[in-house]
């Protein structure tokens, strides 16, 4: 019951993510999503495996504390509040997100699951989160919102990994977490450099770098 609730909340937070124009709001939703997913293994009743508990703690710490900390610092440096004028508007984004969620439900329906899996919502939710992340990456203009998209994308992958969490070595999960942390860390630095170089964090300017 509890896992299904968490999954539903995750899917709902996807919609809020694409619909909000405030950068800080988007960050909050992404962080919330990360924490929700970090709690997932415990909700699934996997608390008896020590390495999974460790992983859940690590996920919650990284996504709930370390990454928001990095975001806050970046936000303070670049002074932006809103994502103005995205490539794809908020209404259209919301519709696309709904479309993606529907498509993932359709796709997941045809995907063969491991026999005995009780969480049927897991695959569609992970695909929907993945699409949302991609949508954010593709449609937003500010570097910071793109990082949020990247974070959401990773959340989707994490959710998919939960399906196999009992069989997957902890190393893989730990690798994903480390990847995420380093990615956001580096992007925080890059964003600052973009601002210094172009006097704005609009990634459109990066197009000037093509050969």
């Amino acid at each position, binding site marked *: 019951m509890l896992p299904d609730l968490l999954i539903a909340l995750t899917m709902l937070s996807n919609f809020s993510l694409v619909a909000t124009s405030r950068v800080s709001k988007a960050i909050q939703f992404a962080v919330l999503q990360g924490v929700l997913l970090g709690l997932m293994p415990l909700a699934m009743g996997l608390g008896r495996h020590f390495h999974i508990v460790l992983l859940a703690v690590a996920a919650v710490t990284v996504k709930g504390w370390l990454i928001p900390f990095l975001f806050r610092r970046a936000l303070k440096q670049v002074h932006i509040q809103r994502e103005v004028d995205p490539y794809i508007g908020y209404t259209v984004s919301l519709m696309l997100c709904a479309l993606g969620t529907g498509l993932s439900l359709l796709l997941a329906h045809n*995907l063969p699951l491991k026999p005995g899996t009780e969480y049927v919502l897991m695959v569609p939710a992970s695909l929907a989160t993945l699409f949302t992340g*991609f949508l954010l990456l*593709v449609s937003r203009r500010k570097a910071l919102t*793109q990082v949020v998209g990247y974070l959401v994308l990773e959340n989707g992958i994490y959710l998919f990994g939960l399906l196999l969490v009992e069989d997957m070595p902890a190393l893989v999960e730990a690798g994903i977490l480390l990847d995420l942390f380093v990615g956001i860390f580096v992007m925080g630095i890059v964003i600052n450099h973009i601002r210094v170089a172009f006097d704005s964090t609009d*990634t459109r300017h990066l*197009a*000037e770098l093509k050969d």
Partner: protein
Amino acid sequence: MSLYLLALLAAAVSGVPGLFLRRRGGEVAAGLLGLAALLGLTAALRVLAGGAGGTLLLRTAALGAPGLLVLDPLAAFFSIPVLLLSFCGGLYGVGYWEGHRGHTPILCLVFGLLTASLLMLVMASHALTFLLAWEGMAIAAFLLVMAEDREAETRRAGWIYLAATHTGTLFLFAAFALLAKVQGHWGFGALPAGLAATPGGTALFALFLLGFGFKAGVLPLHFWLPPAHAAAPSHVSALMSGVMLKMGILGIVRFLSWVPDPPSWWGGTLVALGALSGILGVAFALGQHDLKRLLAYHSIENIGIILLGLGLGTLGKATGHPVMQVLGFAGALLHVVNHSLFKGLLFLSAGSVLHATGTRDLERLGGLGRTMPWTSGAFLAGSWAICGLPPLNGFVSEWLIYLGAFRGLGLELGLGRQAWPLVILVSLALIGALALACFAKAFGAAFLGLPRTQAAEQAPESPRTMLLPMGLLALACLAIGVVPALFAPALERVVGVLSGGALGGGTLAGGETLMALAPLRMLTWAAVILALLALLLGRWLRLVPQGRDLPTWDCGYAAADARMQYTASSFADGLVRGLRWALRPVAHLPRVAGWFPHPARYESHVPDPALDRAASPALQLAVRGAGLLRVAQGGALPVYLLYVLLTLLALLVWMVA
């Protein structure tokens, strides 16, 4: 085998100490290459003397083949020029690279890697190891060609080479894939009888011929060769021309050794390509003023001679005439080693000329024989050998092919094939005569007469580290030329491999040996008699009263100067004009107008039609075609991410639906 692998290792790391040493890195590299040569030659000679080779197996179960690296007689035979030339090149490089300090250690390192790739390539017996070593060789050679990348001409040569070599590799990929499909695994081994006559066999032959033809520089595919050889540092040119081109031949030879029953038209094709490469190669060489380009075209000519021998051997194999088979293959294989020796020698001495005068242009040289006696001696020895004059080694291998073709004239070959031996004979004769003319021009223009520029007048003789390798190669040329009988048993063993099971072992068909088919011992006596005659002639000339010492081409005119002598172009002009239909020389004639005309220049050169008319336009077309893809590169990150998303979606839908 382990000795050989040690040699490979030594060659591969030969440049590493140079990266850390402040000085003498080149010497250390040359020393390691010398060690590699010593170890490798020991191993190779042991195999050629009849000792057991070895096989390296590396978890071959996964790759489905009996072995990855095999040291068989063929590998041992082809490793000899690799080892000799890389050592000579490494030693030569010490003096040659003294001038530009820039990235010498890196180039030394790459030179060692090239050697190691070549050593691995010769004994590769699996498509994987073969292609790995093949690519290693191609890329290492590319880096070495680009050594002087500040010059636009060098960069152009490098890119043309890279494009050509990869096109060839593309054909090889197709060929090996087809081979794996036919025999069920990726290893090398004898193909089933009857395969050669099927369409699959024909496709294999065509693909291998194309792929290896690019590397060997067979005529329409040779266009990368002259610019790359001219642009590369001279000892690299020596290694490329002497050894790397031979890897194309090695590939063809390996393929021929797998086929028990080649159709006779394979032999015909090889002969036709050989005749084309040989005759046109030397014809184009005649038109060159650039010493190294001239030598590069001669490499094409010699590849042609090797192909003539291989074609003769294949014809013999197809029609069941061991005499033609043995003599053709023996001549071709011996010419592989011979060409690497004398072409290495020629490129090294051409490099010395370049090093001393700073130019490769024959029209700016002249009279170097006086200031660079050793270098000119080395160049003369190389020229002598490449023209196929006794008593040097070029004569022996060409003589074997001549002998096989003459024997073939009297044999029953079947309808339509009777003409092939005649074609071989006529082409060989034509090639020999033109080569002689060409080297008379090259040697005469560079080393005889009066110096045409100040640089040529003041050219210093090269340091000893550069002269020593040349002496070594010249001695090797002489040894094979004077006592070829010494090398016959080894050659027989390799020919045995190439001829397939029917002629395996120490003796060839019907108990006949190469010695019986070709009276090699007679050559020794002929050489001795020739030497005695030369000595007598020299004595006699000294007895004749001497005339006065006058400048060359003086002809009784009191104020002779360097501009009055024959130039390289004018020397070759008659022949170039005669071959105008093939060479299409371009002349820039000055326009002389008015009563007091300005100073005027006359210039003529022979461009390469394969490069200028075919390869270059094709490349440009490809580049323009690739430019269309630029549309996809918008520069906007979200668009790139969109590509990823769309791919992901498409994959998901494709997988699930």
